């Protein structure tokens, strides 16, 4: 019975598994089968373990009861039997003593029949197996069993041979006693007694019956307790398993739920799990909803509107604490909003003049609007911030409003515009001065000296052309700025273009002592494009090459053509461009930081224009340069494919 419970037959084990797995499957249909099986087998294993623990305990208890019962029975039995056999022996010895004394006297007086009666009575009364008087010649004169008597009359005398007394033994089954008789005037004889020791089983049963009944009752109650506990422990085992899984980080409800048919504990456990699951879901939902609520509910329309402003807004009360800060202000002041609201304004506005202005306005001593520009640098973001501080008056409190604007780009643009205007003025003034001077010379000396006049007119012509090109460049840049820089596409004959380019710069290179070399392929195709603008781009590149190459240097224009593109390399041995400057040379108004560049006139627009032109044609300009070694500008233009 016990064994069967501990190790259920495979059929039973299967039924337990199915009991366990079915509620899971029913409750959670989406659960993976493999996982299910794994869990169930684990659960049922643990369930078995839970059962085994109680079953083993029960078995041990039952064995202890049984062993106690048996040993008690055995010891009692031993003790009782010893006591019984000792008492029997005493009894038999007393009977024997009585018998031999009586027999000696009686036989001496030849009262055989009395002796026989005595023995017979003794045998019957004391339950003796054998009780006889034996003569030396083995003649039995008297016995408890009359059939054994073979001497009917006591002889008058007999050979008085040595009468050996038989062994006096006593064991659990039989007491054997033998006593020699000396019959006066006749001879010697012997009294033999065999007395079986009867062990009364009834007595044992009477003494042990109570103990046995108690043991049996204990076993039965143990069995009942076990049967009862077994159900409880199934649930406990499953819950224990779930707890262990939980402590190992299992969070899936499916893995933690136990079969509800395992008892009220299992149902309670499942309820607990559900509760916990709901709570954690609520916590998660709450955590995610809070910020949303904060944003959506706590934020009024006005606050939202202020946050949508690109200007920073800070409202400051008379205690110089920030009452309201919008998002942009937090960005500009590089602080967190929650660290700003309700805190002293000096914690996040570090600029002394701004603070002074705020103090004045908040205290009510200054009524006018104040504007302060602060240039900030360092890690916290560089830029120019414009603080406008104005008073906000209400009856109950005085306050200041600070509006912060990021005017960095405007300032940068102003600076470059100013630089451009200064540069342009310089660029325009130089040819104008030359023109004025040569006009004066022509007026004063031209009449008399035609050579001087011709020279003067040439210079004037040249300078006028230079002026024209400067103005064109500026116009182009403003067109690029406005985004309306457009191409006038037509056929461009490349051979003519390069021939003119060479002719335009021949004189300049010769004057400066620079070797200008044109490496043109034998045949150049015609491409679609804006001739004037391509010409401007090439002029700017070649002009720069000659401008930034010292005397005795050389400049080469290498033109190559393949199926899809035209590549023009303009290589010089000039002053070169540093790596840092290379990143910016195509930016508008940018001029290299090299002091040698500063001495040479230029607008910082030529390369911007050149690249814009080439890009509009679908090409690109790249630069490769080393300081003091020279530069290589590579211009690529697509030819086969119509440029976008």
């Amino acid at each position: 019975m016990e064994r069967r419970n501990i190790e259920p037959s495979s059929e039973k084990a299967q039924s337990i598994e199915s009991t366990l797995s079915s509620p899971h499957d029913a409750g959670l249909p989406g659960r993976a089968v493999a996982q299910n099986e794994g869990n169930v087998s684990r659960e049922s294993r643990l369930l078995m373990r839970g059962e085994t623990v109680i079953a083993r305990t029960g078995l041990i208890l039952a064995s202890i009861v049984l062993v106690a019962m048996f040993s008690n029975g055995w010891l009692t039995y031993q003790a009782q039997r010893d006591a019984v056999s000792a008492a029997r022996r005493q009894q038999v010895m007393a009977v024997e003593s009585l018998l031999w004394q009586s027999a000696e006297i009686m036989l001496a007086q030849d009262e055989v029949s009395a002796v026989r009666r005595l023995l017979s009575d003794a045998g019957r009364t004391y339950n003796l197996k054998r009780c006889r008087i034996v003569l030396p010649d083995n003649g039995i004169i008297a016995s408890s069993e009359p059939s054994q008597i073979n001497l009917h009359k006591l002889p008058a005398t007999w050979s008085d041979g040595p009468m050996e007394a038989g062994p006096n033994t006593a064991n659990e089954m039989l007491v054997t006693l033998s006593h020699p008789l000396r019959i006066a005037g006749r001879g010697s004889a012997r009294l033999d007694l065999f007395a079986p020791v009867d062990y009364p089983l009834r007595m044992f049963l009477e003494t042990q019956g109570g103990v046995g009944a108690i043991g049996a009752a204990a076993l039965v109650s143990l069995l009942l307790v076990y049967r009862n506990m077994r159900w409880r422990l199934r649930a406990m085992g499953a819950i224990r398993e779930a707890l262990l899984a939980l402590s190992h980080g299992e969070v899936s409800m499916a893995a933690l739920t136990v079969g509800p048919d395992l008892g009220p504990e299992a149902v309670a456990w499942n309820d607990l799990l559900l509760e916990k699951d709901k709570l954690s879901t609520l916590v998660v939902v709450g955590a995610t909803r809070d910020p949303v609520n904060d944003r959506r509910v706590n934020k009024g329309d006005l606050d939202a509107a202020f946050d949508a402003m690109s200007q920073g807004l800070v409202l400051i009360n008379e205690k110089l604490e920030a009452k309201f800060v919008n998002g942009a202000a937090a960005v500009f002041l590089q602080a967190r909003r929650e660290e700003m609201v309700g805190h002293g304004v000096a914690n996040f506005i570090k600029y002394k003049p701004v603070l002074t202005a705020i103090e004045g306005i908040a205290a009510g001593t200054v009524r006018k609007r104040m504007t302060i520009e602060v240039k900030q640098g360092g890690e916290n973001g560089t830029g120019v911030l414009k603080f406008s501080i104005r008073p906000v008056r209400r009856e109950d409190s005085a306050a200041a409003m600070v509006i912060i604007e990021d005017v960095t780009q405007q300032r940068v643009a102003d600076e470059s515009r100013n630089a451009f205007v200064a540069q342009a003025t310089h660029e325009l003034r130089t040819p104008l001065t030359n023109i004025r001077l040569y006009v004066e010379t022509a007026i004063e000396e031209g009449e008399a000296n035609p050579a001087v006049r011709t020279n003067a007119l040439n210079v004037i012509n040249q300078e006028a052309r230079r002026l024209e090109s400067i103005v064109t460049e500026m116009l182009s840049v403003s067109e690029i700025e406005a985004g309306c820089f457009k191409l006038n596409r037509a056929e461009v004959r490349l051979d003519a273009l390069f021939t003119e380019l060479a002719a335009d710069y021949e004189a300049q290179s010769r004057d400066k002592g620079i070797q200008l070399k044109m490496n043109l392929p034998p045949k150049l195709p015609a491409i679609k494009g804006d001739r004037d603008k391509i010409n401007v781009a090439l002029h700017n590149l070649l002009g720069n090459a000659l401008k930034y190459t010292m005397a005795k240097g050389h400049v080469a224009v290498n033109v190559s053509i393949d199926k899809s593109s035209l590549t023009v390399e303009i290589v010089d041995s000039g002053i070169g461009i540093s790596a840092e400057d290379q990143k910016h040379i195509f930016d508008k108004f940018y001029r290299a930081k090299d002091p040698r560049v500063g001495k040479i006139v230029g607008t910082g627009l030529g390369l911007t224009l050149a690249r814009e032109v080439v890009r509009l044609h679908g090409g690109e300009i790249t630069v490769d340069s080393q300081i003091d070694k020279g530069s290589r500008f590579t211009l690529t233009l697509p030819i086969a494919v119509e440029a976008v």
Partner: protein
Amino acid sequence: MDIQTQRQGAITIIRPQGPLCGQDADQVKTAIIEASGASLGRIVLDLEAIPFVDSRGLEALVEVTEEMSEGGQALKLCAANKTVREVLELTQLSGLFEHFEDVGSAARSFL
């Protein structure tokens, strides 16, 4: 992923090279947020060298522009190709950004 940054005046132009997807999206997001912090939000994301974006790329862009919207700004995108523009239109996320033809016009918008 190679991310080029360039200054134009006071504006930082961020130019990621390659598709905006997977792990690269996070890298670009980090780069934008860093640059944004350093230049008080004066940044332009140049999409010229981005052939396409995936969901993570979009997510990164949306996260950045939402963060910037806290400060009353929006992420300025420029030179997006047709594919990227279509993705933004189809996902109806286009309205979260400011779009410009090229870097120049994006930079001018800060004036």
